[in-house]
């Protein structure tokens, strides 16, 4: 970067460049991660318009066709009618992705949003009210953080059978509120004594005002990081349920596609496109979420930026 002395005003271009470098939100990881996720959302939105969503129905195409440019074990070549091939029940893999990927994201985001709201509410309550209430909330979150959600959900769904996507998200939300609760409780406790909060209190601001107008904005990077981490956890849990054959039975999801592929012996029969393409898409989704989280870490902790 050019040396700028105090006498010289930086040119407009230089100033713009410096602002860019100083803006932590212009973080390459953050941008890449958001780009990957937006790509998946776009696949779901634009895909529905450009591609026929009815191809997710059983028997809408020939069975076990390979992607374009490949040949399956019966010697059939892939066709443009099903560019990513078809599964064992004649469903188009591209259509499965277009319908299934947004479903996975939806479950993750909804579960995380609900968990986040519970977490914000309980965290502030615990930090502000203190005493017995704090004890109960803290012990409950300590307890719930140990219980693996997947197992309780397995018990639930094998007892109740089919669930909807929304229901699954609500159930998962019951297990992702602990980390925001802890995070906010700890921050509230330390910020309660901070100068600006005391100032606000002295100037007669209400508790609600202090909590949501003074304290909450400071927590935004942490909360957003916690939100993204919870989206990942929720999707992993949902996919886990689906791969065990639980989860929604009537809506196509990426996890259920993988479950059906494993059950039909797709690995041994080398029908790789059936399970590998949904797997890769899920991997892209997770990588995108990870990059966003890493980017956010760098935004809120400048020490990490040097690498």
């Amino acid at each position, binding site marked *: 970067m050019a040396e700028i002395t105090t006498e010289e005003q930086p040119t407009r271009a230089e100033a713009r460049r410096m602002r860019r470098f100083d803006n932590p939100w212009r973080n390459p990881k953050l941008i890449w991660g958001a780009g990957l996720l937006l790509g998946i959302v776009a696949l779901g939105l634009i895909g529905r318009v450009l591609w026929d969503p009815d191809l997710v129905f059983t028997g809408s195409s020939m069975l076990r066709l390979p992607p374009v440019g490949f040949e399956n074990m019966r010697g059939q070549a892939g066709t443009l009618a099903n560019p990513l091939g078809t599964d064992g029940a004649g469903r188009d893999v591209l259509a499965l992705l277009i319908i299934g990927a947004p479903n996975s994201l939806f479950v993750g985001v909804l579960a995380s949003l609900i968990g986040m709201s519970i977490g914000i509410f309980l965290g502030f309550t615990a930090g502000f009210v203190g005493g017995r209430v704090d004890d109960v909330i803290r012990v409950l979150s300590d307890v719930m953080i*140990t219980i693996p959600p*997947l197992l309780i959900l397995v018990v639930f769904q094998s*007892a109740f059978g089919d669930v909807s996507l929304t229901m699954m998200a609500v159930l998962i939300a019951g297990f992702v509120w602990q980390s925001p609760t802890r995070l906010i409780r700890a921050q509230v406790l330390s910020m309660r004594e901070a100068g600006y909060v005391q100032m606000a209190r002295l100037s007669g601001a209400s508790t609600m005002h202090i909590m949501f107008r003074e304290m909450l904005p400071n927590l935004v990077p942490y909360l957003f990081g916690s939100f993204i981490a919870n989206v990942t956890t929720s999707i*992993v849990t949902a996919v886990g349920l689906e791969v065990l054959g639980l989860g929604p039975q009537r809506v196509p999801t990426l996890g259920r596609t993988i479950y059906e592929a494993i059950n039909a012996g797709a690995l041994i029969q080398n029908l*790789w496109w059936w399970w590998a393409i949904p797997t890769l898409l899920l991997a892209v989704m997770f990588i995108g979420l990870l990059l966003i989280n890493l980017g956010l870490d760098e935004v809120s902790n400048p020490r990490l930026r040097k690498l």
Partner: protein
Amino acid sequence: MGRIPRAYIFNRLVTLLLTVWIAATLIWIIPRLSPVDPAEIMLGRMTAGAGTVANSEAILATLQERFGLNDPMIVQYVKYLRNVVQFDFGLSTASFPTPVATMIGNALPWTVGLMLVSIVITFIIGNLLGALMVWDHSPKLVRVAIPAAMVFTSIPPILSGLLLMWIFAANMQWFPLTGAYGLFVEPGWTWAFVQSVIYHGFLPALSIVVVSFGFWALGMRGLMITVQGEDYTKLAEAKGLRPRYILYRYMIRNAILPQITAFALKIGLLIAGQVLVERIFAYNGMGKLLYDAILDQDFPVIQGVSYVIILMTALSVFLVDLIYPLIDPRIRHEAR
């Protein structure tokens, strides 16, 4: 040693018991809220097997009696809690009349063995690589290659398991596709058996390691950056100590402690993830048992497996919490 206050231990113990109690209660309540009746499922299985069943009414009544479904709810609950403490989960409905405890007893060593091996390897590799990423003297390759490998962190082990299985078992046939040991190997403490177990366990363990070491590396990197700026590191450098000595004795030693807390929090996820890995590799552990039980709607087994895994998770977290203050003298014991 011996510096852990009683109150701290007591506090952790209460959390442990609460965790297990709440989990056990959830596992008990949920099936009871559902319209599915285990006795009817069993009768249905009999009918499907034999075509028709005589006296189905009487059998249903007997089964309901056998499962204790006629008692008042509170009696059932107390009986359940008493049984759970004694690891008595009743009899499997799918492979009646095998006790669930026996089936779990057979599956548990496989899960614990695979888990210990993969968790220990993951923790060591991850932390070492994370430290090397920050260390000024590590080879350039390390600093470039590890961040690149980091993208795997976010992928759950079940996906890596599928990919590894496809590449190394289905295509290259270097490793077996499924199972925990060879078909023609007699289980026992023979070299052939041990060899077979290692050979079969390699891919499941690898699929956990490749996706989880990055998590530790990432955490370690953040901690090492903090330690690097500390005065004692600068002092050690000024004293002219060998860089390698500083890395191990000063930097890693001080940075690794929060990782152990992270470890306790991560155990639950690791175990749940491993259950799925076992399912796709048809590995003879708790994961396969759980999956088969889901297919057969074998409720006692589903409950038993879930309970034991939750118990294992809670116990591991408890142990890590107890060990932590022993290795980190800086920790304050808050007896709250």
